[in-house]
């Protein structure tokens, strides 16, 4: 089936999210949609999937103009979607999830689970998946859950399959497997739309590449194009993909973590007996697939995890058992993983967000009153220094783009006197230009002699920043390796294996 989008335009108020986008996806090919976050890729796919109605333009399948009132119509027309955030019911079994939305029923509405199981088995066999139809989805690893999503789409005879940022949650090995599945689907004649901002993946599987910037198609690219060429096209200007940094000159040990264990609400050890040291003037990257204890580890460092055991000390001073306030006063700067949820108050202005963790005492509070004059001057200064693009410092933080929101958080955390800087997923969901800026600031912080911990699931980021890399798997540190370690080795470690010659 050939999918064609003709002149798709979607506006939200004054914002034009998609501006006359034309796209043609042939059966049996993989079409990559490349663009930064906020470029309009997801909007376009939501139009295709019937979640949004286009203001202008038409969707054509095999020469027939379609009119989708909702996802149901799109599905019936043969369009399937594997969402970035899985649309599965965690407590249902694989078979139940696959039949959800188009249940086959027998007498008096009895569910025909046998048919669903048979379908799961049939598709699994076709692609060599090893999936038990009766397994409960929440017990399955993330990579397998994604396969359930794929089975779900295929069970409805999808001829056009959209993958929305599918590799964000996968290990490098799982990503390789997904690529193989995509190749197999392509060989069966499925038209595949692959949305991503990861250049490496694009060049590996794409037959055609369309680059989108600010809601417009800015051009096609060949899979043979270099990373730099693709990035330049995506951002609209030349970008430095690697951070310029001098070799680290580590000083004395600063942060010493000994036998740290964090237990979650269910009594599971999400961080299990972790020990490591970070020196002054070095960046330690904590790599690993999402959900292997990195979040809890960083939270424990600043006192957000009350159920933590073990010892943490910074420059000889004990951090164990401190409240967040005390930890911040010890000189820890912290960029949380989810900035809109944990890093900013969306309704507050940029200026107010800049004083969020300094609402007691100087310089912003005197005699119980907020010194708005001081605060506003500070905010103006930081807005210029960190290149925060906003109408004014009184703009609500929630209205900023992801990159600018992250700059606000960075500006707040880096303008204190730091003895340790912890950044969790500092560049997740922000544009390439901002990534460049964030990375430069982190290296500058390191060069100022501050120990830096960066948690990242993106190997590109880990490779760009790290002086040393600690890989976490199921709450434990698999090993700590030099920053120059190869991707393959890191990939194996992220899956829990310890390659020979690696010591903890």
């Amino acid at each position, binding site marked *: 089936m050939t999918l064609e989008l003709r002149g798709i335009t979607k*506006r939200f*108020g*004054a914002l034009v999210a998609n501006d006359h986008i034309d796209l043609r996806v042939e059966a049996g090919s993989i079409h990559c949609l490349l663009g930064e976050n906020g470029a309009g890729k997801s909007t376009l796919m939501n139009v295709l999937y019937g979640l949004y109605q286009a203001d202008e333009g038409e969707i054509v399948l095999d020469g027939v103009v379609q009119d989708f009132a909702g996802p149901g119509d799109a599905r019936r027309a043969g369009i399937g979607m594997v969402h970035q955030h899985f649309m599965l019911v965690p407590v249902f079994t694989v078979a139940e999830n696959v039949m959800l939305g188009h249940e086959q029923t027998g007498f008096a509405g009895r569910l025909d689970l046998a048919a669903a199981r048979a379908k799961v088995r049939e598709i699994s066999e076709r692609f060599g998946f090893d999936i038990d139809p009766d397994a409960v989805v929440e017990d399955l690893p993330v990579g397998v859950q994604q396969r359930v999503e794929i089975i779900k789409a295929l069970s409805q005879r999808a001829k056009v399959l959209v993958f929305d940022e599918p590799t964000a949650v996968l290990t490098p090995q799982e990503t390789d497997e997904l690529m193989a599945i995509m190749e197999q689907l392509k060989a069966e004649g499925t038209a595949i739309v692959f949305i991503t901002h990861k250049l490496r993946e694009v060049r590996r599987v794409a037959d055609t590449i369309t680059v989108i910037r600010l809601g417009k198609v800015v051009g096609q690219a060949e899979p043979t194009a270099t990373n730099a060429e693709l990035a330049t096209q995506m951002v609209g200007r030349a970008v430095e993909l690697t951070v310029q940094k001098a070799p680290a000159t580590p000083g004395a040990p600063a942060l010493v973590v000994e036998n740290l264990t964090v237990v979650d609400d269910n009594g599971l050890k999400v961080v299990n007996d972790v020990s490591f040291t970070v020196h002054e003037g070095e960046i330690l990257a904590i790599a690993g697939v999402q959900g292997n204890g990195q979040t809890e580890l960083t939270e424990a460092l*600043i006192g*957000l995890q009350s159920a933590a055991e073990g010892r943490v000390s910074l420059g000889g001073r004990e951090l164990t058992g401190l*409240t*967040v*306030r005390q*930890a*911040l006063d010890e000189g820890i700067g*912290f960029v*949380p993983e989810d900035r809109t*949820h*944990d*890093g*900013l*108050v*969306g*309704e*507050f202005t940029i200026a*107010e967000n800049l*004083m*969020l*963790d300094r*609402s*007691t005492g100087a310089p*912003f*509070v005197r005699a*119980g*009153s*907020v010194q*708005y004059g001081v605060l506003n001057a500070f905010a103006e200064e930081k807005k210029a220094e960190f290149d925060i693009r906003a109408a004014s410092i009184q703009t609500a933080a929630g209205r900023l783009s992801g990159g600018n929101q992250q700059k606000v958080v960075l500006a707040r955390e880096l303008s204190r006197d730091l003895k340790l800087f912890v950044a969790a997923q500092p560049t997740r969901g922000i544009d390439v230009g901002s990534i460049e800026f964030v990375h430069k600031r982190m290296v500058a912080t390191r060069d100022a002699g501050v120990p830096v911990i960066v948690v990242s699931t993106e190997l590109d980021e880990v490779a760009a920043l790290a002086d040393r890399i600690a890989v976490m798997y199921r709450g434990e540190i698999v090993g700590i390796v030099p920053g120059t370690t190869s991707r393959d080795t890191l990939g194996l470690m992220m899956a829990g294996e310890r390659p020979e010659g690696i010591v903890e």
Partner: protein
Amino acid sequence: MSGSTPTDPGRGDAADGTGTAAPAAEAAAAAAPASGGRPVVPPRAEPTLLSRISQSSVTVTVLALVLGLVAGGILIAVTNSQVQATAGYFFARPTDFFAAVWQAVAGGYGALFQGSVYNINRPDFLSGIRPLMDTLTFATPLIAAALGVGLAFRVGLFNIGGRGQMLIAAAAAGWVGSTMNLPWGLHMILAVVAGLIGGAVWGGLVGFLKARTGAHEVILTIMLNYIAFYLLAFLLRTPGLLQAPDSSNPKSGPMADTAVFPKILGDRYNLHFGFILVILATIFVWWLLNRSALGFRFRAVGENPEASRVAGINVNNVYIYAMLLAGALAGLGGASQVLGSVTSGVTSGIDAGIGFDAITVALLGRSRPWGIFAAGVLFGALKAGSFSMQAAQGIPIDIVTVVQAVVVLMIAAPPLVRSIFFLNRPARRAAAASRLPEVSAK
């Protein structure tokens, strides 16, 4: 407790006859769990009910008020006997019907105005303005309690406990006012302070339990309302506690003259010193929320407790402080009621439904201090005017409650108001117009 059953706390009939159960407040309470508010608050992809209300535009508020008055007008017309009679021969002489409707509604709202702002039938200005003074008198405890509710709203807490906090405050202030012998001035100050502390304790208890156990504040405040009501009833029925000596009625002794709020504009008007206190309280809350560091933390926790926690703000302490202050503000309302408006003594209906009306007022004032002040004056006017509406036109007081309820209903559902007034379409047209230049430029 003895076998006797005091009045049902849900009804709140008052000694001075102004009691109104507030269906609007109950509706708000029922909607509250949707707002979240456990110590660990789920992610907020959707705006919460509280943030939606506090962010609703002034236009929506005004239009909601208009809709409330329209609904009240319809009820006035429907229940009017003249309108009913003329409706019988509507098709013969429709003009009669419309004239009757006009007369009923205009008469009703005219009486409302005369009873709440200015009585044109009085000979001179000073007596003509008396209704306005009554309005402000009614508004006094309402504003105080609503400031307490509104302050809690801003911290993300749905404080339904205005009633309980007022009752405890009234009991404390009433006890000091009726049983102690102190010089003028000092007595009054001590009584007010007792009221503030009483309310603060009752509110702070909620904050403490929420912070320590994670219990939901809506459940806590509602249950503490019952506890306060029956506790007060017990105190009033037990000789030697709060009950007036030599009396078997469930009522305290009258307030001593040394404790009663002075009339600030002379004995001609009922307006008492409590109104000055309420103005000061409004200024204080404004400063607290907009200028103080504590208020900054309050608002931060109210908007995003997770980010506040990560930023080193002790969210649990903020809940406790906020509820202490909210309780004290409601306590000011209770003290003002017992020391200013109903000085004959504390009864278990002393709150006169104000604790619930305060929720409505706080919503209408969008949880902003001066918005609450204005909304409180408006509700005071509705209350003052409803008596003359009943006296002059025989219109039931309950109509005013309906108006209040409709207003809050509409404020809680801005899309409904906008669709009633077709406010969505112009916005779309404006957006279309702003696009035109781009198109022509191509």
